[in-house]
């Protein structure tokens, strides 16, 4: 699933490790989500969006709307 995680992270000067620590997941998880290799569960997607103070659809692109 496409997402803006890398951009949002870069805006805050966070490394993947920093974001992983804040989300209490492994750095591998952040990398897999960022690169679209893994789609997070709804609870984790909510946690990610809430961490950035955004709505889920502002972080993740709906597969039906992705180009």
């Amino acid at each position: 699933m496409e997402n803006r995680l890398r951009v949002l992270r870069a805006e805050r000067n966070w490394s993947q490790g920093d974001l992983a620590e804040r989300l209490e997941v492994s750095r591998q998880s952040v990398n897999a989500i960022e690169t679209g290799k893994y789609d997070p569960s709804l609870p984790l997607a909510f946690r990610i969006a809430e961490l950035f103070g955004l709505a889920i659809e502002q972080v993740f692109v709906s597969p039906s709307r992705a180009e």
Partner: protein
Amino acid sequence: MPWTPAAKRYNVRLILLSLLYGAFLVLAVYGFRHHLVAGAAAWIVAILPALPLIGIFAAMGRYLVEEQDEYIRMLLVRQMLWAMGFTMSCATVWGFLDNFGLVGHVDGYWIVALWYFGQGIGACVNRATLGARAVCS
């Protein structure tokens, strides 16, 4: 290779159960070679080495439940599915070959070794397709 708290706990359990397996195996082999066990005791001693291995299966299940990182959990499940598919395929093929007298009979406990090998295959597939692997391999 992410060592989450659950993975560390699993590793400790795995080491302890492996040591126990080694001790029970030596004990059972010694007991039977020297004809020290008979009757009901023989059954118990013969099963003794299997118990820590069953414990390892339980430890893997517990790790799966305790692992809080959903991505690592997904890697682990994929790995276990590969192990299961590989083991069952090998057992099925060998079973027919054995049945038609083309190969010799193999002791059932080798299934466990095959399953571990299958986990290794699963870890390699995870590494090749997702660029990551769980620690349980």
